[in-house]
């Protein structure tokens, strides 16, 4: 099947079995290796991307579901000039250690912090409960997101 969608703001199309995983399409066909596979079964959140602005687990999304929709990966967030301060805060606060969970946390966190003046702890925890991080103990990630201030 041929699918057409918008990937990080660009119109693209790809061929594939409709049930192929979005994760593999992104990594193999589009060489967007920022999105990681941590478990392949929807548990770790490392493969999170935004589909029409909502976080989804790309290891569970069959590509036919992306027809005509918008996909945003960590590379897309990183290219957004408005995201620069946000990304730097992650580094400053130590919200990134090994970095394997980071792309998933960045896209979820970026979505969460847009249009928000200030995030509450509970809100952050709810939104990111599906993104496992084994390195940081999460505190630094929460700190990075809490510091988000009105832009």
């Amino acid at each position, binding site marked *: 099947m041929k699918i057409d969608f918008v990937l990080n703001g660009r119109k693209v199309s790809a061929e594939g079995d409709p049930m192929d995983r979005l994760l593999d399409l992104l*990594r193999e066909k589009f060489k*967007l*290796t*920022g*999105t*990681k*596979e*941590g*478990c*392949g*079964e929807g*548990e*770790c959140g*490392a493969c999170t991307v935004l589909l029409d602005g909502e976080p989804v687990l790309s290891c569970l999304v069959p590509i036919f579901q992306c027809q005509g929709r918008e996909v945003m*990966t*960590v*590379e897309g967030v*990183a290219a957004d000039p408005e995201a620069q301060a946000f*990304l*730097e805060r*992650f*580094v*400053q*606060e*130590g919200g*990134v*250690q*090994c*970095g*394997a*969970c*980071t*792309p998933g946390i*960045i896209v979820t966190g970026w979505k969460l912090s847009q249009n928000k003046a200030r995030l509450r702890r509970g809100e*952050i*925890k*709810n939104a*990111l*409960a*599906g*993104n*496992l*991080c*084994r*390195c*940081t*103990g*999460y*505190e*630094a*990630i*929460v700190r990075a997101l809490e510091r988000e201030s009105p832009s």
Partner: protein
Amino acid sequence: MDKVTGEALYTDDLTLPGMIFGATLRSPHPHARIKRVRWKSASAPDGAICITSGDIPGPNGVQLLDDSWPVLADKIVHHIGEPVALTAAATREAAQRALQAIEIEYEPLPPALSWEEAEQLEPLYTLSLNHGDIQQAFTQADSIFEEEYRTGHQEQLYIECQGMIAWFDDDGMLKIIGSMQCPYYVQKALMHTLQIPEDKISVKPAAVGGAFGGKEDFPSLLAIHAALLARHSGHPVKMVYDRHEDLMVTPKRHPSRIRHRTGVSKEGRLLAMEIKIDLDGGAFQTLSPVVLSRAVLHATGPYRCPNVQIFGRVLRTHTVPNAAFRGFGAPQVHFAVERMIDHVARALKMNPFDIRKINVVHPEDRLATGQVLDESTSAHLVLEEVEKITKFRRRWRSMERARARRQGDEPMRGIGLSLSFHGAGFTGLGEHRMRSPATVRLTADGRMEVLTAQTEMGQGCSTILPQIAAAAAGLRLEDVIAHEPDTAVVPDSGPTVASRTTMIVGGTVERAARELRDRVIHWAQEHLGTGPDLEIRDSEVRGPKGSVSPFRDIGRACYEQGGPREVTLHHEPPAWQEFDESTYRGVAYATYGWAAHVIEVDIDPDTLEPRPLKATGVAEVGRVIHPTMCKGQFEGGTLQAIGYALTEEMKMKQGKYLNDRLTTYIIPTMKDSPKMEVTFLDRPWQGGAFGAKGIGELPMNGAAPAVIQAIENATGIIPVALPSTPERLYRWMMEGRTTGED
């Protein structure tokens, strides 16, 4: 920064021209004889290849402490999941399908799977340590307590699974890039098994997505597998495990069974401790002897006891070998000794803080090895500090009272305290034997470059080592760079383990950077005629009369005009660090890190499910060189230990892990994680780089016993095993393992 933008390249992100994929055929039996292996190439996908133990050019063993861990099983399989044959084909799927073209006939043998069955076999390793006279001391004790404690497997669960790529370049050089902590371990294992000389192998870590000890030994096996397939096929070969395979076959933390017999005076002073430690080593030795050694050396906790007898064994079972995980034997024994201290306190009606206060080690005290502790001993300081911050003493007491008065399903809340320590660097003479080198050199553009084999896996060594060099040489950070750890280029500064990077390697880097600076200045005097009194600060070289020149200019001139370019120094262990490995007497570690944890939990009265609310940690790790990273290490380690205490468990049936998926192996999520507050006592230690000691493993030791004590405080149930799952808590409650006051 490249990690937040998705640009950092991990093993699975890399592709090489002509690359094919490898897959592994594994034993379905815990113990069996291999009677026949047949490769039915006709039914395999086109171009697929297969390798068995007969195709290994050198010894069939992964070179580590010894080489008893087979690369591929030969006549006997010793655990479920043991690799028996390998395939490679054009795609991952084809390589998997090729596995079905291998036919193996097994004859099952009886496996040893329980402690009792394991005891029937020859232990993999034993160790003992004696101090004072325990028999005598037990006769003088006012009371004697006995208990058995158990801990289970824990899985490292780095988010990036194991992965390796191997190929031969046009010059016949074997190239390895993969996810690993110790590139030189991998290189040595390849030399041994593939019979390839050192200068024909280059091993390089890709970006490493977490390790925690889990990428210390296993990458050597995986690298050999990939290299064998690359040699056989003539193609670059990638082997990356999926989570299921990674969980099923990679080493975990050793389960333990620890028996304590403790004699105390009526004031609660420790008089005698007899500690018997059994670790479940799994099928092969791997790193178990060293893990046991650390377990034995930390078994008394940071407490003073004049009479100690410790006996440790690593037992053999027919399960996946167990090996390194952050803490390396210390978390198991800390759990046991902290529980025993709590047990004594409760029997003597003492507060957990008070009993620790009267027994905690101070400078001048002796450990069980006879080592006299020096002034860098801060156990008593971290204990006092955590009390000051949390008011633990009073709050523990009031929660005890609240428990006694609790009605129906009112919430249960508890608070727990623990004290822990961790020997920094390798045990005993490990560092003496290695005297590992580190190099600092000038680059053509006049900067300084640090060359070590230390691997960046999120703990920050690629930041900290240049930071140390910069500070030593008076340079700004942007003038110092770290060379990536490629075994073809960097010296063997030793493995990235045992919290040794900052203290040991950092110390050598510090000296080397200073020496290179001095030599460059000296050269400048002689060749540029600058005069002797140059000073370097913030990358600026200042003459005595106020002239200023960037270091880069002098560095470049020195490089171009044939001045000194490079300094390699070896680690100099302190001369006074003497340790007798046969009797286990002497200075096992040059110094220790110290920590106190206070953790609060809520328990659901219906399900008995504990929820950690807040963790407070106080630690002394010498000088804190990079506060953000140090804090991050402490917080991350603390949460791993909370997972160890509460949910992380490998259930096993017939030698097979049942929860070998992330759906069933439960690590803490952001919602399960407590609020954390970490304080460091800044006490520079004279022996480390700028006064730093290691931090990585320390937080792993103390958090679990603190959570468990908090559960006891909240519920009155007395846990004696990890993890303390709701099911276990319920069982202990039913068995009457309680404080008896409810």
